[in-house]
């Protein structure tokens, strides 16, 4: 309990501004133009609009290439270098009890091809944004996503694990430094 609280405080201290969890309000991302086309799953899951198709590691000095995508290792380490915190499958991301709750993300990989991120919204369901297409709360079989480990993920067959991100209840206003 004490350890969990200390870890929680450390995570809160590492982010600028209060962390909170977004609800599923895809209209911000699904404008059919600038925002939708230029923000990917990493932007959406961290809830940070950069209009650059943000890449894990770029903000911390790493360039991810397709050769890094044989498994999860490099993408996960680059995301961690960006400030995301690996977290176990069970349990919520830490907070201070009433606010500053971090948002849980999930990373998956299509081997030697691509990576993808999901985010856990305030209603307890997972949502995602496949590349430049619309953000959605459905998986490839058109089912709501209750568990990214068992959701239909198409070719993204490797489940890598969970992370905590300092997000925001306001769409596009997450606090992690990604680019």
């Amino acid at each position, binding site marked *: 309990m004490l350890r969990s609280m200390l870890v929680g*405080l*450390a995570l*809160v*201290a*590492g982010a*600028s501004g209060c962390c909170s969890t977004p609800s599923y309000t895809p209209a911000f991302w699904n404008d*059919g133009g600038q925002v939708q*086309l*230029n923000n*990917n*799953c*990493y932007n959406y899951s961290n809830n940070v609009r950069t209009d*650059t*198709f943000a*890449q*894990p*590691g*770029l*903000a*911390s*000095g*790493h*360039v*991810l*290439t*397709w050769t890094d995508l044989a498994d999860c290792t490099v993408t996960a380490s680059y995301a961690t*270098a960006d*400030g995301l915190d690996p977290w176990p499958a069970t349990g919520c991301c830490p907070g201070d009890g009433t606010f500053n709750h971090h948002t849980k993300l999930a990373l998956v990989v*299509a081997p030697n*091809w*691509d*990576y*993808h*991120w999901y985010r856990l919204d305030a209603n307890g369901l997972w949502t*995602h*944004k*496949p*590349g*430049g*297409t*619309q*953000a*959605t709360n*459905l998986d*490839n079989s058109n089912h709501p996503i209750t568990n990214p480990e068992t959701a239909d*993920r*198409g*070719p*993204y067959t490797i489940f890598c694990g969970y992370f905590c991100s300092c997000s925001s209840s306001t769409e596009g206003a997450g606090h992690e*430094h990604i*680019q």
Partner: protein
Amino acid sequence: MNTSSEPKSRARRLASLVGVLSAFLASCASTRAMQPTAAPDGVEVRVLLFSGRPDPTFVLPEARLAELTRALNSARENREFQGETVLPSRLGYKGFLLLNPARQAGLPTEIAVYRGDIEVAAEPRRFLADGGALEQWLVERAQEAKAIDERALQWIRQR
């Protein structure tokens, strides 16, 4: 809390600066496909394959624009189309997106194509159907431009 957050914040800012410089130097050497692309003067085609990495793009040669116009003209109006867009929010192949901000050859500013359905940015937005002819034509142009390889082709053909 401030005393512990400030050093971490400074360290992050420094890491960020070093990161930008390293990323720039690295990008000069390789990874062309991982960099965002600037909007070209012509008709830019994005092959919507990825979720995280930037999608492959190419520019349609001017000599091909008349063929694109003909393909659009020969597609039939599809007033029964349900939904906001023909491009699916799914993992895997998601169609082609053609961006033409300069309205080259009098073509629409945006055309989306997926599995025989075509969406044309206009007032009002129009939906067309052609049985997949334009999509196949775009696959051939993407191969011609070396924007996609054999594996990408497999993804596109997967149902």
